[in-house]
Structure formats: C-alpha cells, structure tokens
C-alpha cells in the first residue's frame, strides 16, 4: 500500500536527518522524500512517499508524530491529492530519431530545454506515473542521465 505523508517540521538544522533516520531505524521504506520551505519561514514541509502494510503505515504516522521537531503530519492517498514530480533527462539523438523524440515529448507535454549537436535535455513536470511513462517511452533511444525531484503533494482543494 502506497501512502503520502506531508510532514510539517521545524526549519532547524538536523531535522532532515532525524526524520530520515527514523525511517531507516524502524525499517520503513522511503520511496521518495522532498523537503522545502513553506510560506512560514520557520516551517519546512517534507513530502514522503512510503509503502507498507496497514500496521506499518499507521506506525509511520505515529512515530513521525512522536518526533519533537514534527509540527504536524498529514497522510493521504494519491487519489485525494495532486502529486507532481519534476524530471530532467538528457538523451542522445541523431538525424533518424530526432523527430520521433520530439513528437513523443509533444504528446506527453514535455519541453526540450537545452540542446547540443548530439544531446538534448527534456524537462517534464507531471505525476510520478506519467514521469515513469515518458521514461519508458524514451527507453528505446539512449538515455544518458536522469534527475528526478521525487514527489510533492497537496490534498485537493475540495478535500478538507
């Protein structure tokens, strides 16, 4: 079972390592972890995607709540939230496959943001599933390098 934890923490030195350390010590998975400041400069938001059985998922939330740097833990399923991930990817191209790559990017809504004689860099911001899909589609051409941010998420406006 996949679960997203939106964790508001005190924006202090060492908090990231405390939270990440909790996951390794308790044998919980981290699929992805993203940290950034919020509108309050003293508060950071960590978006953590994890998976496990029902008991593990409950324990993760309880253990996060026990940490004294954690202000609030919100957990939700992907369905109740908008999730986004940013992908930057360098691919090698040639005369034959150039058009093909560009068409694929067009269909998916990805942008080409940088180019050289034989490399191009693709930028794509979408759900983690669609990011995976784009990577899958371009696997036939040679992918040189990939950087993904991991997933950020907020609950949908209609959800309370």
């Amino acid at each position, binding site marked *: 079972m996949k679960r997203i934890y939106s964790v508001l923490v005190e924006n202090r030195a060492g908090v990231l390592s405390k939270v990440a350390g909790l996951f390794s010590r308790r044998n919980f998975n981290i699929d992805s972890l993203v940290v950034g400041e919020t509108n309050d400069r003293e508060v950071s938001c960590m978006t953590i995607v994890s998976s496990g059985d029902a008991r593990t998922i409950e*324990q993760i939330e*309880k253990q996060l709540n026990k940490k*004294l740097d954690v*202000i609030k833990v919100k957990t939700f399923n992907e369905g109740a939230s908008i999730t986004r991930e940013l992908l930057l990817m360098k691919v090698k191209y040639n005369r034959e496959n150039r058009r093909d790559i560009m068409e694929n990017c067009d269909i998916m809504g990805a942008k080409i943001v940088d180019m050289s004689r034989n490399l191009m860099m693709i930028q794509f911001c979408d759900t983690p599933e669609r990011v995976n899909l784009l990577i899958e589609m371009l696997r036939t051409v040679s992918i040189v390098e990939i950087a993904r941010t991991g997933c950020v998420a907020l609950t949908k406006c209609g959800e309370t």
Partner: protein
Amino acid sequence: MNGADAIVRCLELEGVEILFGYQGAAIAPFYRALGESGHIRPVLVRTESSAAHCASGYARIREKVGVCVVTSGPGATNLITGIATAYADSIPLVCFTGQVQSDMIGSDVFQEADITGAVESFVKYSYLVRDAADLPRICKEAFYIAASGRKGPVLIDVPSDVLEQEVRRFNYPEAVNMRTYKPTVEGNMVQIKKVVGELAKASRPIICVGGGVHLADAVPQIRAFVRDNQVPVVSTMMGIGVMPSEDPMYFGMVGNNGRVYANRALNESDLLLMVGARVADRAVNRPDLITEGKVLIHIDVDPAEIGKNVGPTIPLVGDIRHIFEKINAYETEADLIHARKDWIATLTSYRERMTDRIPAIDEMQYTDPRRFIRRLSELLPEDAIYVADVGQNQIWSCTHYIVRNGRFLTSGGMGTMGYSIPAAIGAKMAAPDRTVIAVMGDGAFQMSMMELATMRQAGVPVKLVVMKNGTLGMVREYQHYHYHDVFDMVELKGDPALSKIAEAYDMPFYHIETGDQIDACLPLFLEKEESALLQVDVDPNDLAKF
C-alpha cells in the same frame, strides 16, 4: 554569569539535589560553576556509562529526573549505553555533555564526537546549544520533556565556549511552550466508558501491568482497581512490584522467562487489560495469538506503543494514574464480582499445581540460588530496594524474590550487564534510609566493579551479592539448549578473588559456598548499615529456565 553558571542555576531551580558525572576539559567550566555554587552534590563515577545508570536508579526511586554531566568525545560516547538503557525502560534523565568549541565543530579536533547525531535513536530529544542565551529555555524544556508523556532521556550538548559565554539576562521560563510537543495526559472519556462497559461483561478478566505503572506512580490506583473489581493480575518484568508478590490476586510474571501459570492465565482470559506494557517479544511470544477470542484493551501514555506489536480492541492513550482514577470511580456490580470467583479459583489452583520444576542441585557442593533469594527476601526489610543485574541472576530474582512494599529494579528493555551496582548507588542516594541490594553474576560484576570506588568515595552503603559460577550463565544456558552443550566464549577463567577485591575497597566480605551456609551467613551480611560483598557459589550447570 556565564553559560556554566546559567546551567547550574537552571538545575537548582529544577530542584536537582545530586548529579552523577565525570570531569574533562570541555566540561570543566561547568564543574567549576557547580563547585562555586555548592548547592548540588556531584558524584564522581568511575566510567561514564555508570553515571547514566546511577542517575537511572536515582530517578526511579526519587521519582524525579536523574541528571548526569560528562565531557566531550569519549566521555560522551561512553555515556551512550547508559542513555540507551534508560531509553529502553523510559527512565527520565537529562544528560549534559561538554563539546569542543563551536567554531571547531566538524573539524575532528581532539575529543570531538557528534554526540547528538550518535544518540538520536536513543533519546527522546537532544539539543546542541549554539548560544548561552538559549540555555534557560533549553533546560526548562529538557526537564519537561524527560518527565512528561512517555518519559525518557534528553541530551544537551554544550560547546566549551558556550559554557564560558557571558549571559546578560537570566530568565527561567515559567512554562514550556512547544508547538511540537503536547503529550496526551487525560484519557478520552468515551474510550474510558467503553473500557468500563467491556469490563462489566467480562467473566475472566486479567490485567497485565508493566513498567509504565511505576513510571506513572499509579501503584495505589492499580491495587485499588484490582481489589474493587476482583481482576487477577500478572506482570511483565518491569511491572514486578506493582502488586506484592504474595498477594492472592497476583499470578506472577508472564513471558518466556515467566511463570507457566501466568502465561496460562493470560491465554485463558476473556478480557486482557494491558497497562503500561509494550507487549514486547520477551513478555508475549506471539502477540497475534494472545488476542484470539478475547477483548484486548491497551492503555499506554505513548500512542505509538498501541498497535505496534498487537492490534487492540480498545486503545486508550493517557496517563495511567489519571485513567485509573476515572475507572475506579465506576462501581462494579456485586453479581459480576461474584461471577469472577470461579475464575480466580481456577487461577489459584493453577498457581498451586504448577509449582516450579527445580533442577536437582547438589547443595553439598553449591548453593541453590532460588532458595537463597527466597531466604534473602525474608530477611530484607519490607521496603528494601532490590536491583537485579542481567542474566540468570535476573531470571532467578524475577521469579523468586518476594517484593512486599519495596521496589524491584532491573534493566528490562536493553538488558544491560553491569546495571545493578551503579543503579543501586543511585537508588541508595535517593533513599538513604532504605536497604539497597544489588544482585549480579560474576560477569556483570566485572563490568562495573570499578564503581566500588564510587561507593566508597561517596560513602554510599550498598549490599552486593555476586552469584559466582565462573561462566556467563545465561548464554551458557542458551548454548546448552541450542548447541547441545558446546560452549563458546562463556568461560570466565580470569575471575579475580572476590575476597581480595572486597579487601582492596575496604569492604567486609562474606562467602556462601554451599546451601547449608545460607542461614548462618545471610544475617551477618545484612546486619550492619555498611557496604558488604557476598559471594554465593552457584552451579555453572544450573538453569534459569527449566
């Protein structure tokens, strides 16, 4: 006033009377300030982990936060085992460590260790102090965090320049205001009513008490509950002493080292109240099985413990004392109490029938530790504090020591060898009028015998019993069962002559070689209010679990 003076002032305002520690360059400014002020008694231990164990023994008896103060680097890392031991048993400590100068942190200078990083998974919280002006707030928070909610150790790492930094205005905060820490104290009334409702339906209820009952200072409330509701009691190792051992309603310690009839009682109940217990592996072997066909009510101050090892029917988070004051306010129907008579009679018959199988000990050659401990129980004052170390001695103590109105202390969660001597020192300092006795094996004794000097220097009279069998008995026993008597790494061939150790520390020495010497020797050993060392020879082939 500098940072060191500020810490001393904070400790005084928190009502600290005694602290345990070790000197070093990085922490020297603190000890200078402490000496200058003169209100708090520092006790110099012989190795830093003992400082934490002393503070733990002190905290458990004095029902206050224990304090220890050590230096940077190796001083701090030596403390870790003590901190982890306290964390596993939820003992409230505030530990100060000296640190290298702020501007040197991270450059691997002499005696530098990233102690806040190293103890992260063993502390409730930790601080690295950057500015002496923050010290009053940090100290106030640390004492509050350590002693509230689920108790535990808090570490404050103070660089030496912060200790010497000028503090212009000292303002000790009245209250703590942390948006991230609001422990649940009052139990939810809806849940409490549900518990009372389920209790009213149960004909075979049982309550299993853990260390949380002692920590919440809820022994009277639990005893009243048991009496008024006629609910039989079993305990975990940490819950020993919540009920007097010989109370008719007490059915012993559960778990793989516990009593057969206690486990039987747990299994045959229709309602199980787990109170301040973690449902940990040593107490409950298969958590999924004990819940079958019964109502499980789990009461704990830490919400994360509920549902961690076993899924309860009714979870109830809050302070145990508070919750049982509420539960005790409900009246129990007389019919129900009457209906429980059969259940209690059944358990009583189990207790009578399932007596201990005791291996045949040749008492002409060795001492039977069970008989020794029972005789010791009879001779000790009613309010004595008994500290068991870790190993076979601990299991024998758990099952045969008769607690009346005293306390039984041990390192339960972590199982730290060498806990008993320093913890007994702390306990004795917390209760100078009570008899304190530490019981250990020859393995654990050699892990902490340097603290005999602490006892002597601080003038703390503690009775020490060393059960000597020249082997690491608990592991040897494990090898007996699991490796068919192939014994590796357990022989203690280099054991010193304990009589000479006692002599070296100016301590009377007694020796019980065989069972027939118990009655003559024990009264002499216990007679005077002075430290004494008693060696009891036990059979290396003896078993704690038989």
